[in-house]
């Protein structure tokens, strides 16, 4: 995905490692690439930013966190989007290239677990959610609910949310685990589809980005272990790190940002936060 954005003459300060503008050519473009989870948010930011700053061009591409970070290390993009922190290996690789990556947390991604409003279950542990989605627990009775079969709802397998939920909840962060969603899991093409089914079906359980949660469904509290408190997801609990099914989303730049890139990142961390919730993510606090 590439956002084609506006152009005009460019007479601003340029990042040090970018080629200086040749008069009469297109202005400097901020190249922004990486995580597919972040791509829609990054696009929305870019579109909103050029409304205010029509003299800037920003190009946004997906491809995955690893792809974005690799491109940033190789110097082909200015900003790498990542839904995970850089690994030791990646940090080493960038230092070999003489680049000290600077990390910015630009938003947070939290997943809410939702059920029908009449469901008496109020909270689940990560282990229970994992057992539900892998098909080990198949009846709400086993969780203190009514004697009803559990209907599992998920996003399609190409959604970033699907992968995140699988890695952090089903496999509970264990990279050697090979647990998969139960084959009985209904894969719905959109968050709206999940909300619609959860709203009508007392058997259903679903998950969706916190920003997409609407009324008419019941959000469950989540605990890491049984003895821990069950935390309801909210902007506060996510930012405080109390809600377990959440993760920061990053942007990485090569060295301390200057010029256009610094302006853009500054805007993202301040005014840009206003549109974060609309895209299903959690804005940074304060």
């Amino acid at each position, binding site marked *: 995905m590439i956002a084609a954005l506006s152009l005009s003459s460019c007479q601003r300060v340029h990042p040090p490692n970018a080629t200086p503008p040749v008069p009469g050519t297109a202005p400097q473009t901020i190249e922004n690439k990486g995580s597919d989870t972040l791509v829609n948010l990054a696009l929305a930011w870019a579109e909103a930013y050029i409304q205010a700053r029509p003299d800037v061009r920003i190009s946004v591409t997906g491809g995955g966190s690893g792809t974005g970070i690799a491109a940033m290390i190789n110097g082909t993009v200015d900003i790498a989007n990542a839904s995970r922190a850089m690994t030791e290996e990646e940090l080493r690789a960038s230092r070999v290239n003489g680049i000290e990556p600077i990390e910015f947390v630009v938003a947070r991604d939290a997943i809410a677990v939702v059920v029908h409003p009449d469901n008496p279950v109020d909270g689940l542990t990560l282990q229970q959610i994992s057992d539900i989605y892998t098909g080990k627990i198949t009846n709400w009775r086993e969780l203190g609910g009514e004697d009803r079969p559990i209907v599992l709802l998920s996003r399609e*397998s*190409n959604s970033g949310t699907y992968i995140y939920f699988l890695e952090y909840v089903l496999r509970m962060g264990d990279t050697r685990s090979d647990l998969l969603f139960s*084959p009985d*899991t209904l*894969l719905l*093409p959109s968050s709206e589809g999940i909300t619609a089914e959860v709203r009508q079906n007392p058997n*259903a359980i679903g998950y969706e980005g916190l920003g997409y949660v609407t009324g008419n469904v019941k959000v469950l509290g989540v605990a890491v272990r049984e003895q821990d408190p069950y935390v309801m997801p909210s902007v506060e609990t996510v930012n405080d790190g109390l809600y377990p099914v959440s993760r920061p989303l990053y942007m990485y730049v090569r060295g301390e940002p200057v010029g256009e890139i610094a302006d853009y990142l500054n805007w993202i961390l301040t005014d840009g936060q206003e549109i974060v919730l609309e895209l299903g993510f959690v804005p940074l606090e304060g």
Partner: protein
Amino acid sequence: MCGARMNDQEQQPRREARVEPVSTARGLGQGRDHHWGEFLVENAIRVLGFSAIGFVVLIFLFLLQEGLPTFFRVELPILFGQRWYPTFDLYGTMPLILGSVLVTIVAIAIALPLGVATAVFVREVAPNWAREILKPMIETLAGIPSVVLGFFGMTIVAPLVRDVLGAPTGLTAFTGALLLAYMSLPTIISVAEDALDAVPKSYRDAGLAMGATRWQTIWRVVVPAARSGIITAIMLGMGRAIGETMAVMMVTGNAARMPVTADSLFRPVRTMTATIAAEMGEVARGSTHYHVLFGVGIILFVLTFMINLAAASVIFQKRRRGGLR
């Protein structure tokens, strides 16, 4: 014969039936002076006709080019395995194939009696004025966009299936089959009705003259005489059902489970068409997943081809025995 608008599913048999009149027209034209205009039009039509075939061939070649690598890249036991987790390189297409087959067969089992009965009613029983109203109405049914039906299925049919039949969720194979039955009905009715229409009046007269009741004449004489046309109707309806995507994707739940247990009809399934539609948009071009989706397209094509072949062979056999049509 009926002069109403036909939709594209029904054009095929109709085109076949019109081959003769067209060639007669050309025969007449040859007798006259040679007109430039006629020459141009005739050739333009010929080019268009052949280009249609050309496009089909090109599409088929493209499908083969993109899909065949599947069968080399993915080991066959995995490709025909039972686990479809494309994100983790598990490309078992069996749940998808069986899902499509289950939904299609059940849809036809529902649509067949309804469709044939409606065709018999419209053609043989209904008074003229009722026929004049019913025919265009049935043909209008075919024009309802499938996404509208899908939405209707999601909001009305699925909750009914859950509440009335007690399924854990309303998004089931059965819900999909109900919608598909509804969608294939116009095809089945129109084609079956044409087949009944083609039965000579003398058959009916003979039946009645032998002392058979009207019902006996219809059921024992007219319907069997139109059998090959009715089978064509079923095959076309099946073709429509197996290829339908949008409505199915919206109401079947898309869970890639093997539909082999007794209750599978009332559990979610994932069809081949829904899989292609849901996953093609996000897949990286040239990746294994991309080729596998085309491979699924080939499997779907082969299934549809076999259905058409079966239909053709039935008609062919019937002809050899000197039956109608």
